[in-house]
């Protein structure tokens, strides 16, 4: 039923090429297409209901009823064959290794700046550069413990890195829950097709968190620090804490005494050794960073500096998320590893470079402009879809603060068959966010979160902008 009227419309399609299924989708489609429309609809409703029941929802801001919605979930999985995944994995390992060396260097010797591989101005002016942490020895010399790197495929199907999320990337709970939902809806599919499991992510995460504990602690107490129940990722926070069997704490549950962190329990104060924090640097400690932060813990940074508590991710990793720094990652890989990047990236123009700026301002209607430190689809101009006013607004923004803007050509993201209410199966644009863990070794859960732009023609996959998600299958073999 899927292939009957399906059109790729000239886009790179993940599942279909030249009117037929790609090799690694054949076994799946054969099974999937034997479902009747009614059976499919049944399964779809059952899955939605199960997400709603489990409270896997997000709050719709600005709705006074406090309506909760489920993240739209599409039942057609994205499938990646083994060799393709091996290529992605190698590229991600290379990238996080280089980024980590880069952060270590920037917060210590700054060789890369001294040798002028990257103009020092860009690093020193980065919003998330934390000069207070120069020469601070982070535990096990790891800065980015958890990285959610966004990958896309362009018109020729080659994978490209779109951005690195090295602060508090979210979405991994959906990877795990989507798989659970698919297994319940299509148990027989999994029997027939060799799909690599994803369930050991929480165990790997906990292993990593225990690994970075302060040296002197034998059996470390690990907690997850959440901004609280009203945060849009709260479901994920409780989910991960529960899977790891650790406490989920809010700032007010913690207290610092003599540079040691404790949680307030019914049996008095109990020491805490490692904090998986899902709060940005700025809000961690009101005595050091933002004074108005009610989410943080007064004195936490003092305890961190004294080496009495470890944080994941480390403070100051936001530097690597800066979209200007992204431009330099190929140079970073070359400089520290003496290798060519395995994964390509999108050509990027820096507005503070004279010639680039000229080009950007002359070609605004063709380009995507992004603020260097925004995420979630905010602070962005989609040139081809923008109105004249929007373009003029960005022209002013860029001229006023060129350091904070970059531009990229519009990449036509690959598409994937997706069930669209009323229209049957149609192609929709997707991306992929794999989750990389950096502990004693680097481990990557097979696949990651495939996000899909459900609106016809839309290239924006963010959940805040009408995106949904899919289960991502990495195969043991090629088909």
């Amino acid at each position, binding site marked *: 039923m899927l292939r009957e009227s399906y059109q790729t419309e000239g886009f790179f399609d993940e599942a279909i090429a030249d009117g037929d299924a790609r090799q690694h989708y054949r076994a799946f489609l054969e099974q999937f297409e034997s479902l009747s429309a009614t059976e499919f609809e049944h399964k779809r409703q059952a899955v939605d209901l199960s997400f709603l029941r489990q*409270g896997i929802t997000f709050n719709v801001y600005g709705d006074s009823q406090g309506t909760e919605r489920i993240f739209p979930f599409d039942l057609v999985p994205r499938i990646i064959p083994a060799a393709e995944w091996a290529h992605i994995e190698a590229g991600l390992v290379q990238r996080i290794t280089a980024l980590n060396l880069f952060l270590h260097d920037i917060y210590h010797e700054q060789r890369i700046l001294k040798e002028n591989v990257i103009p020092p101005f860009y690093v020193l002016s980065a919003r998330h550069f934390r000069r207070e942490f120069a020469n601070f020895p982070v535990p096990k010399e790891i800065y980015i413990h958890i990285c959610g790197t966004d990958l896309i495929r362009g018109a020729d199907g080659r994978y490209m890195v779109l951005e690195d999320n090295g602060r508090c990337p979210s979405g991994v709970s959906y990877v795990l829950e989507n798989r659970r939902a698919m297994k319940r809806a299509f148990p027989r599919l999994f029997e027939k097709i060799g799909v690599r499991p994803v369930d050991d992510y929480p165990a790997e995460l906990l292993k990593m968190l225990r690994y970075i504990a302060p040296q002197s602690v034998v059996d470390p107490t690990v907690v997850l620090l959440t901004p609280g*129940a009203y945060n849009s990722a709260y479901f994920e926070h409780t989910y991960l804490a529960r899977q790891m069997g650790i406490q989920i704490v809010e700032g007010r549950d913690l207290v*610092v005494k003599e540079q040691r962190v404790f949680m307030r329990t*019914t049996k008095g104060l109990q020491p805490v050794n490692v904090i998986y924090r899902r709060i940005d640097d700025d809000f961690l400690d009101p005595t050091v960073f933002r004074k108005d932060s009610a989410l943080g813990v007064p004195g936490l940074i003092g305890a961190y500096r004294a080496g009495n508590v470890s944080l994941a991710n480390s403070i100051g990793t936001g530097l690597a998320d800066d979209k200007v720094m992204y431009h330099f990652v190929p140079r970073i890989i070359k400089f520290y590893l003496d290798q060519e990047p395995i994964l390509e990236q999108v050509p990027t123009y820096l507005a503070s470079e004279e010639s680039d700026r000229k080009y950007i301002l002359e070609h605004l209607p063709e380009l995507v402009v992004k603020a260097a430190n925004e995420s979630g689809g905010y602070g962005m101009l989609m040139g081809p879809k923008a109105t004249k006013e929007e373009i003029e607004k960005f022209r002013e923004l860029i001229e006023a603060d060129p350091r904070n803007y970059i531009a990229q050509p519009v990449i036509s993201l690959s598409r994937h068959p997706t069930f669209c209410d009323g229209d049957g199966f149609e192609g929709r644009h997707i991306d992929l966010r794999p989750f990389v863990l950096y502990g004693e070794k680097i481990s990557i859960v097979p696949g990651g979160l495939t996000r899909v732009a459900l609106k016809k023609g839309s290239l924006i996959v963010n959940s805040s902008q009408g995106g949904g998600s899919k289960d991502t299958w990495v195969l043991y073999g090629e088909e």
Partner: protein
Amino acid sequence: MLSRVANSLYWMSRYIERAENIARMVDVNIQLLLDFRQVNDEHMETHWLPIVQATDDRVLFQSLYERADSQSVCEFLTFSADNPSSLVACVSLARENARMVRDQITIEFWEEINRVYLFLNSARAREMWQSSAPEFYYELKSLSLQIQGLADATIPHTEGWLFMQAGKYLERADKTSRILDIRHHTLPARGIPDAAFGAREALEWAAVLRSCSAWDAYRQLHGADIGPRRVAHLLLLNEDFPRSVEFCLVQLDQALRRISSVQPGRFSNEAERLSGRLAAELQFSGIDEIFERGLHDYIDLLQQRLNQIGEALFETYIAHLFEPAGQEIQQQQ
């Protein structure tokens, strides 16, 4: 266990128990009205106002509605967004607390509590309520019992569960005593009530029993002969009936002592001292001395003492959560 988590588990459990009691009480009293031949406005008021009084919200109710009748009281106790202890509000608060401690409760437990919440906030709930209120309340009661059953059957009986027990039994003791107090105006202020009274009173006392799920227990003990003295004895002092105040206090006391691992007959904090004393008093009280003192006055005092136990529990385990960490802030600055 984190103090904040203990606090949420305790309140979650209290709100679940409260919701179930409201559902039962409203349901029983709607049905009771069907048994009366003539129901005029005045009748309505004397029937429904004590029920509003039992949830301690009379002032709020009278500021919102002109008259106490089936429609207004049921609306107020079930769906009203202005009433912080309506059924809908209790279920929302129970779920909100559950959401704060999702890592502490099982998936089965959470899904059930979430299901009740989603049901109450759906159009289906209103439709069901309007077309058949008994069916609606039946649904809610059974959901609440399922939640409590899941708590016992799926959550390890460790500290968190014990805080849930404490919340449940403290709330239940309070609600049972309030329901028993609903028909106090038919009794003399002091003294043991007459055994013989009218058919209408018998129906009303039967409704009190039903509101506490005590009808079957009562009949096993005393047959169909309903009298306030026996009703009060069952609801206050019976040691085996799981909704009697004495039973609840003994359970509460056990839960508190298991939290702190204190031997029976001893106490290590104010909450244990107060609950242990009240439990012992109930165990060694007679129903006639309570009536001699006056049932209503006795229940008034009982509720105050239950509140004191709740406050002491908060002081012992939770309050330090709200103490600022003053010293470290100054050091940093």
